[in-house]
């Protein structure tokens, strides 16, 4: 593995909000550790063009973009990534999709107040499956 790949790994870790990552192969081993609660503002802002979310009258805060099992919290954490009533911004991590040995981030596609989860933990989700609602402002 070329050293330049480490930066990509850090970006993925950061996006998935992982605390640590270990990678081993015959030729090398890498161990990366991040502080447990990095500043919220450090999370990169991601603007995602999602016509489907727009079509749902803005009620969906986040949807899955890959097939897998939905998780509202990282297996190593005690709490869900977001709680109902919490303010969320576009690009915030709101859950994960587990597929094989991977955990992939699910990020908010709309800003507002988080509502209820639309997918249960361990539920099979696919592209476009809504996982989190926005709370009704009224």
């Amino acid at each position, binding site marked *: 593995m070329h050293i330049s790949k480490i930066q990509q790994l850090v970006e993925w870790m950061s996006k998935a909000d992982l605390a640590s990552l270990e990678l081993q192969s015959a030729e090398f081993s890498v161990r990366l550790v991040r502080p447990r609660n990095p500043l919220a503002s450090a999370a990169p802002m991601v603007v995602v063009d999602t016509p489907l979310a727009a079509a749902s009258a803005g009620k969906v805060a986040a949807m899955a973009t890959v097939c897998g099992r939905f998780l509202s919290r990282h297996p190593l954490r005690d709490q869900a990534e977001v709680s109902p009533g919490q303010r969320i911004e576009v690009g915030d991590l709101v859950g994960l999709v587990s597929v094989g040995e991977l955990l992939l981030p699910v990020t908010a596609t709309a800003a507002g107040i988080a509502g209820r989860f639309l997918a249960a933990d361990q539920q099979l989700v*696919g592209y476009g499956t809504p996982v989190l609602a926005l709370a009704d402002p009224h």
Partner: protein
Amino acid sequence: MFDKVLIANRGEIALRIQRACHGLGLKTVMVYSEADAQASYLQYADEALCIGPAAPGQSYLNQQAIIYAAQATGAQAIHPGYGFLSENAAFSERVEAAGMTFIGPTADCIRQMGDKVAAKRAMRQAGVPCVPGPDGALPDDPAAIQAIGDEIGYPVIVKAAGGGGGRGMRMVECAEALLPAVSVTREEARRAFGNPDLYIEKFLGHPRHVEIQVLCDNHGKGVWLGSRDCSQQRRHQKVLEEAPAPGIDEALLAAVGERCVLACQQISYRGVGTFEFLYEDGEFYFIEMNTRLQVEHPVTELTTGIDIVQQQLRMALGENLSLAQRDIRPHGHALECRINAEDPLTFIPTPGRVTRWEVPGGMGVRVDSHVTAGYQVPPYYDSMIAKVITHGATRAEALARMRTALSQLRIEGISSNVALHRDILQDPEFCAGSVDIHHLERWLKARRDAE
């Protein structure tokens, strides 16, 4: 071994594969794009998952999304159908690397047959007859190229090694036109296929397209399942196919069929495949091998009585081929009309909602389709909406059944090419059998000129 198959395709072939899986007691996972989310055939799968937006690159061609879907659902095998990822060696490799079974040949086989120069060399080694011309890539030296052209004799055809299906080829009528044609085609090949290698062959003036279906297990055993004639083509797209190819000497066909099986054994081929030939003046000339299930497989199923997709699944499960060549006894004749959502005169696709959908039935009539009344034909994919297949004891009977079947096929809400098929079935030359690959284009031109 596997007991759950992910079907990485859409439309009629997804449904066809799903039926074959259930017939063998295998569970199915269908993946679909947002554009296909409302399709009713998805309900027949044990599980159905959306993998991406309408654009094929983000859904049916999205290798990562398909592999995730298989892992998420616990599918241990992936059937690619035809088109999309079916002849993608890298995908085959990725599926196997993920610990799953790719229902098709190995990546090496796909790669070798995908390179037309390598394929031709392999066929020559197995004694499969090929089009006259060297079985190596063209050199760079203009004098050497000119010498090869002169030796073959004009007209010749310049082809891209990475091409196929009518793409990346150019006909050359005389020696002076050869070098300019080579340089233009080389540039096109570099851009379109990422492979600038070219080869040249004798150009055949009035060939038929005749192909041979093979079926091989993973233990060195194989059979050929008779011939098909797919000469009715428009812009290199097959319109109407039949089995067997009419008027070909059986001993000659058997000799070529045996060579095809031998070639499969030499390249360690597994599963189903098709050897495509040009056939002219009593001679076969290999053009390419398709390393996948083909659209027109049902005509061979009706003449041989063999469920080709089930056999393909059995071979992928590692079973020994239970059929011997003497068990393959094609009987009668079968035809297939590809019904497309397109204007019958202009051939422009006509996506939209199907408001009425009534399909024919009866003795010797089979309709493979995913369409139901109310179905929305999406604009993003191939326009084929059904295959009407008929079988009869003779070609005349199969033709008569097809005429009746098409007269009872009712499609409203969108235009289809049914009218074109009805006209073709009245064409005396086609009805007499053995028209060449240019016949349909000539017939269409004559019809346009007459208007």
